[in-house]
């Protein structure tokens, strides 16, 4: 992106005040306000002028929030369903889309009028995303898409989807991909909820049957899809950040401690109590050290010498989390046999009323932690190879036409 400048604090706050003068959050709905915010270049200050930004350094966005909340009890935050579009879609569009598409997409992404989803993973391409099979075949000015995607959040609410598809099977897997913006309402697109172990569906499956996409909706060039996708994913990383809570004993572990302290008196034998206390203590330690490790990572980045502490979080948290909720269920003991919430298949979030209900829900939900966003096996490879510098597994899928690589 073009060089970003730092605007003088007062001037920036002045611009925010102008926005507030035109549309005050306490007196305007989110949609109207966020449209205005975009027009004023206060949506993504690090975006160029005319695209919801002012070409400023990213951290000045904080000044914007600060100034808004200073003057308004109401703050129109990013609508939850819109975060993927705002966080990942917008930067990709900005970097790779045509002038026309930028103007078309960016305002509605930020306002929340149009929800975006990301369609990369496939049933046959989990850890190995670049091995994906969804095909896009050129037909005149259009591409015809057939295939299936999975693990797509908010697909059922989305107007647009970021799609990688294979446009050339005769080259090695990374080279044959292209990136599209897909109209989720187009004929042949079918979205189905994907229910999980808990009965809720946080994700969807998306099926494509002869879906047509105008060539103009390709981002980047044909065959550049992987590079474009990296841009999208880099911004995902930014969105996620380090694990662990901010304060000692905060976050999930506080729930386990509450559960432990309110355990049923007499249900545990003295010996079982000692054994479980030790496991609860281990979980407390794990969570505390995860928190501190994240702090160390921040310190390392700040002081300009980041170490491995920044890379271990995902793996550690997944395993720690699973173990913690296993302990929680054992603390519940016989009461753990009941699952009051039930398994009604449903979309949208599970609502957690009590520490007991949370423990039971998380005991099940946390099994996904060591799989979603990179399995623990893949994370160990990454740590072993990128951090410790160990050699990789012999690769048989490199420099081979995708169509010749064995697939499930």
């Amino acid at each position, binding site marked *: 992106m073009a060089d970003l400048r730092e605007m003088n604090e007062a001037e920036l706050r002045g611009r925010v005040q102008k926005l507030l003068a035109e549309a005050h959050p306490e007196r305007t709905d989110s949609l109207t306000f966020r449209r205005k915010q975009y027009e004023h270049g206060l949506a993504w200050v690090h975006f160029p002028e005319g695209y919801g930004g002012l070409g400023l350094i990213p951290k000045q966005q904080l000044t914007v929030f600060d100034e808004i909340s200073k003057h308004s009890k109401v703050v129109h935050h990013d609508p939850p369903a819109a975060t993927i579009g705002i966080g990942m879609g917008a930067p990709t569009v900005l970097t790779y889309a045509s002038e026309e598409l930028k103007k078309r997409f960016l305002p509605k992404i930020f306002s929340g009028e149009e929800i975006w989803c990301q369609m990369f993973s496939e049933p046959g391409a989990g850890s*190995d995303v670049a091995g994906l099979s969804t095909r896009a075949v050129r037909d005149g000015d259009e591409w015809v898409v057939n295939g299936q995607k999975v693990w797509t959040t908010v697909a059922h609410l989305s107007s647009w989807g970021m799609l990688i598809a294979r446009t050339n099977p005769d080259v090695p897997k990374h080279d044959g991909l292209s990136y599209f913006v897909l109209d989720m309402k187009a004929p042949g697109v079918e979205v189905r909820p994907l229910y999980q172990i808990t009965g809720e569906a946080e994700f969807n499956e998306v099926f494509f049957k002869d879906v047509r996409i105008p060539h103009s909706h390709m981002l980047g060039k044909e065959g550049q899809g992987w590079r474009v996708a990296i841009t999208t994913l880099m911004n995902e990383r930014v969105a996620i950040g380090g694990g662990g809570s901010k304060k000692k004993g905060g976050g999930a572990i506080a729930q386990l401690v509450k559960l432990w302290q309110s355990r049923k008196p007499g249900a545990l034998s003295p010996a*079982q109590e000692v054994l479980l206390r030790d496991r609860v203590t281990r979980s407390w330690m794990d969570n505390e050290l995860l928190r501190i490790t994240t702090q160390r990572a921040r310190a390392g980045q700040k002081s300009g010498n980041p170490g491995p502490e920044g890379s271990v979080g995902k793996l550690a948290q997944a395993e720690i989390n699973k173990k913690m909720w296993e302990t929680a269920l*054992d603390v519940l*003991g016989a009461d753990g046999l009941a699952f009051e919430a039930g398994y009604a298949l449903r979309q949208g979030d599970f609502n957690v009323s009590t520490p007991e209900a949370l423990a039971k829900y998380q005991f099940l939900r946390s099994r996904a932690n060591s799989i979603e966003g990179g399995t623990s096996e893949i994370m160990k490879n990454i740590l072993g190879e990128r951090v410790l510098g160990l050699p990789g597994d012999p690769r048989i899928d490199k420099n081979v036409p995708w169509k010749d690589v064995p697939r499930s």
Partner: protein
Amino acid sequence: MPADFVFTDEHQELRATVRAFLEKRSDERAVRATMTTERGFDAEVWKQLAEELGLVGLIIPEEHGGAGFGAVELLVAMEEMGRALLCAPFLGTAVFAANALLTCADGVTQKELLARIASGSLIASVAHAEPNGRWDLAGITLRAKGTGPNVTLDGEKTLVLDGHVADVLLVVARSDAGLELLRVNAGAAGLTRASIPALDLTRKLARVTFKNTPATRISSGDQTANFERVLALVCAALAAEQVGGAQKCLQLATEYAKTRLQFGRPIGSYQGIKHKCAEMLVSVEMAKSAAYNALFIAAAHEADFVEAAALAKAYCSEAYFHAAADNIQIHGGMGFTWEASPHLYFKRAKASELLFGDAAHHREALAKHVGL
């Protein structure tokens, strides 16, 4: 004679028969259909288990209309049922209730109830656990009020296997005599039953409350010692069921690891997955040793059966849980979806670990037996 761990041709045949039947009548589709029903089992399948396979009366003596088989046959049956996640009141009625009657009840009651259990026409459930969360017999506080053959009950029992559909409840209660076994019929006055929404949909549990409810004494004298042996058999049988489930998880994980390709290779060719499978294999074989040992010892009526049952329940509970958890992990994204099977085993594994006391509970008991 000491446990020799030899399965006779008859045992192998029994296993083959049960497996063939369950592969037809308790496949995944059937399990999913049955587990979401209120009653929790397929009446027709239950009828076939009783009449065609003679499994419901497996451990009931022939004089009471059963097959008169022993603990090794029970091991084979439970292992296969665990493998198939069979949804049926087998553990509750055919094992727990039948064995409680055989061990504690008077002849008349045995005569009346055992035949009907064996024929599949009667569901009986033992009401043992109470809301205090304890599994040890000392935790039983429900009082049998009154002297003579008829008493009344006021209080609550919970986690009663299939208690919501039981025709007869066998209630473990306390009196001056010690622990007694009481009979309460389904229709009894002041009896209310509510099924408990369960973590594991494939095994139904109920909460039972008594309000001045009439009950009849069917045991004489303190049943504590008898009851300890009854619970030991239930735990040993459950351990065998856990072994069957764990073995199936290993099989499912291994098959998936052979057919699922990533980066152009079966994931099972990566040591990350391969070694996980190998570790599962070791713990499944150790778990088999634990469960087989308990039930061969039971069959030989050896003195250290209660100890062996504690060992079995302690080890198999953890082995099944880890196998089920690793099976999810090896299945990757599909592993935690509703439509794939791993979560069914995972929930059964955790529930059967908690049922009748978790691994730590049984290790504590074992340590006492061994003198540690």
